[in-house]
Structures are given as structure tokens and as C-alpha cells.
């Protein structure tokens, strides 16, 4: 096995561990910290897959986003003062559903024969990707930025409604 493969296994294992913490932890702050571990390690996987730009975007976006998530979590659950139940009674069923889904995906992946040769990465060049993003898909990109803007404005309006009343 190549070094890259080992690195991938380590990253993937940590990412899955972090994800597990996210969904199993009883403390919401720890869940958020688990989430950031999972996201960072996934960013590492992106870099391994030669998609450095996406990996870096992932770092940039989620570093701040998760920090904000934690803040909100603190604000809303009063995690230290009040013992807060994060999970509902549907836990066993959810576990079943999750496990089934994982199994199904696993089976599907192993069973599928991909139409192209899939044991080699073909790096997408930075220029190539930029061309795709800003020329071929310029309109969706603009729309996406518009979505962000609208979401931002909407979020502000929703969160600040009191002031007008």
C-alpha cells in the first residue's frame, strides 16, 4: 500500500470518529467539536483526492461556521447549567435506519462496476476548475452567490425582527 493510502485510512478513521462523536455525544459542544474534526479530516481527504481548492474552501468555511454553531449551541442549550437531552426516543429505530443505509451503500459500492478505470486520480487543474466555475458555469455561480446574499439578508431580518416591534 502506498503512503497516500495509509494517510487516507488515518484521515478517514479520524473523520468517522469525529462524525461519531457528533451524532453520539451527549454534550452539544463536544458534538460540535467532533463535527469540526470530521470536517477538517474530510478536507484532508479532498486534498488527497487532489482537490486542494475544495479542501481549503472547506477549512475556510467550516472553521468559522462551526465556531458560530458552538456559540449558538452554548446560547441555546445552556449546556453547563441545564442537563439537556439531545436525543429523542426514536434512537433505536434511527440506529437501525442508519446501519441499514450504511450497509446498503456499502453493498452498492462494492457491487457496482464503474464504467471507467477507477484506480487512478486525474487531478483537475486549478485553471481547469476555475474555467469551469467562472466561465462554463458562470450563471449558476452567480446564482449561488445570490443565494448566499439572500440567505444572509434573510438571516439578519429573521434574527432581528424584535427591533421593529
Amino acid at each position, binding site marked *: 500500500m502506498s503512503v497516500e493510502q495509509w494517510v487516507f485510512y488515518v484521515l478517514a478513521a479520524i473523520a468517522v470518529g469525529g462524525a461519531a462523536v457528533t451524532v453520539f455525544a451527549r454534550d452539544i459542544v463536544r458534538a460540535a467539536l467532533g463535527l469540526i474534526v470530521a470536517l477538517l479530516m474530510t478536507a484532508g481527504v479532498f486534498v488527497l483526492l487532489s482537490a486542494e481548492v475544495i479542501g481549503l474552501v472547506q477549512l475556510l468555511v467550516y472553521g468559522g461556521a462551526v465556531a458560530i454553531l458552538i456559540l449558538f449551541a452554548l*446560547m441555546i442549550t*445552556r449546556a453547563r*447549567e441545564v442537563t439537556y437531552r439531545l436525543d429523542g426516543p426514536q434512537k433505536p429505530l434511527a440506529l437501525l435506519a442508519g446501519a441499514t443505509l450504511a450497509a446498503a451503500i456499502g453493498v452498492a459500492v462494492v457491487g457496482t462496476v464503474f464504467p471507467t478505470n477507477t484506480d487512478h486520480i486525474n487531478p483537475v487543474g486549478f485553471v481547469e476548475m476555475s474555467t469551469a466555475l467562472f466561465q462554463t458555469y458562470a450563471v449558476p455561480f452567480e446564482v449561488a452567490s445570490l443565494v448566499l446574499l439572500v440567505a444572509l439578508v434573510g438571516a439578519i431580518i429573521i434574527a432581528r425582527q*424584535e427591533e421593529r*416591534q
Partner: protein
Amino acid sequence: MVADFDTIDININVGPQHPSTHGVFRMVLTVDGELVRDLDAVVGYLHRGAEKLLENQDYRQGIGIQDRTEYLAQFPAEQSYVMAAEKLGGFVVPERAEYVRVICVELNRIASHFMFMGAYGTDVGVFGTSFIYGFRERERVYRFFEELTGERMMYSYFRVGGLAWEVMDGFEEKARALLQELKRGINDINGLLTRNEIFIARTRHVGEISAERAIEYGLSGPVLRSTGVRWDVRKDEPYSVYDRFDFDVPVGEFGDCYDRYMVRLEEMRQAVRIVEQALDQMPKSGPIMPEKMPRMLRLPAGEVYVPVESARGEYGVYLVSRGGNHPWRCRVKSPCFTNLQALREMTVGEYVADSVVILGSIDLVLSEVDR
């Protein structure tokens, strides 16, 4: 329809061990995020029963206790005490002694204000520079006092009736040289802080209090004058020889932290003016104690209250004598204690960061608050 946004107000204990409480003072802040909702000032950590001690010391020994009560502006405290005793005993202080007292008191005021400037800068967030500047200038004054009295802080230099001993040789020249240095020091502090935008933004309109409320609280000193009330014991109820000097009483406009700073800064300049005039007018020779002073001081029965303008406001000593060589009762009206009352009103509704700035702007001396 909208329910209360039910967040928990956190109580934050600022002090008694905190870098910005200027001594062992404690304030319990109830904060909502960064906003102060309530403030509970807790005093008494430095209570030593100074007033009770005064009752058990004779009049001369009491002077030393006054030094320790107000350890940043010792001379005004001494002055208030000895003036009370003089008033009870009917002593007439020689003119030369009065001038030396005024010089000491005003230099002491400058030293105290320098201390304030330094600590205040640190409260607002300057990394030590204002502190060092302030202490450098204060050190000059202290060195001068050391030469004059033999002590750096606890002078015990004033006596009922006059002064303990004659001033050192070259008093006048040394004082004038000191004044030149202090003027430079004032300009240093002025250049460092006064026109700094961040300093303005941090202190302007912060901790405002109106003139009416200030008078209702009985505030005095720079805190009162910053609200625009032109009231200064030296001007309005002149004692000692203050009526012979030409000086201004600076007042502020809004009663905020910036005004309190500016009033103190201007007061330092005025103090320099007073000292210069005093040095000019001072008799070059003459007695420093009245002719006939008894060896053991026994004051007639009676009671008397003598306020002076200390660096922090009206510092008054209330003496009750039943005859004998020590006061029967002695109470100190300390300016900080009264000024501290307004802290809550000034702070509630401001940000957490402002609370230390406001506290600093009151210029606390905890030993004087707690006594």
C-alpha cells in the same frame, strides 16, 4: 406575543483579586452577554478601623494615621486633620508654614493625578506606557517629598500649628526645577492619550452622570466637576491661603469618563500654577510654628468639621473633643466612598469593558473608602 428572550444573566466577580480594581475592591457584575445589567459594589476588604485608631492616639500621632488613610494624596489628608485641630485649639498658623503646606498639597495632587493617569491608561488598555509615564513623574514628586520630609509616602510632616521642621536648603529652586519636569510629564501624558481616537471612543459618553444626580449623590472632586458643576472647596470655601492664588477650576461638559480625565489633566496644570504663585509669594524666612505651642497638645471641648479639596474630592475630618490630648471622636468624610455610590448608576447599561474604565475614572483609593 414575544416572550422574554430567556438567557441567563451571568454573575461575574470582579475582584477582590483583579488587575483593574485598584486595590481590594469587589464588584459583582450581572452581565447579559457584554452588557452590565446590575452592579453590586462590595467594600470593606481594607477596613482597619482608622477612625477608631484616631481616637486612641494623641493629635500628633493621628497625623500618621491620616497618611495611611489616604495613601495617594497624603498631604491633603494631613492638612484636613491638622486644620481641624487648629480650628478647635484656635491656633494661628504662620504664613510661611501655610505656603509650604499649599505647595506640598498641590504637588501631592499632581502626583496623585499622575498615578490616576497611569492606571487609567492601563484600564483603557494601553500596555503599560501610560503607567510608566505616570509613575515616572510621580516618582519625581516623591523624591522631592523624600528630601523634604524624609519619607516617600507616610510623611507626617504637617503639625498642628505648622510644620514639623524647616524645609530643606534650596527648597524653592528644587521645587521650580521639579515643576518644569512635571510640565513636561503632563505634556507627555497629554500627547499619549488626550487626542487618541481610540481613547476618545472608549471614554467619551461612557459612564455619564448628570449634574443633578451627581449633586444628589453628594459627589465631589473631579467626578462632580466633570458634570459641569463648578464646585471646589479651595475656591468656594477658601481655607489656608488659597484665596491669594489665581487659578481656575476646570469643569467638564458631559460628566463622562473623558471629562473626568480632562478635568484631572487640567487640574494638574492649575496645580502647577498654584505652586508657582506660592513659591513667588512665600516669605523667604520666618517661623513655621506658632510662638507658644504647648508641648502636650490638649484641645478644648467642642466639635469641628474641616473639609479640604483632596485629589479625589472633598476630604473632611470631623473632630469631637472633650478636652484632653486625643480626640473623643473622629470621623473622616472620604470623597471616594461617596463617589463610589454613583458607580452603579454610571455602569448599569454599559458594556463589561466599560465597567473597569468607569471604576478607574472614579480614581479609587480603597484604604480611604474602607478606612
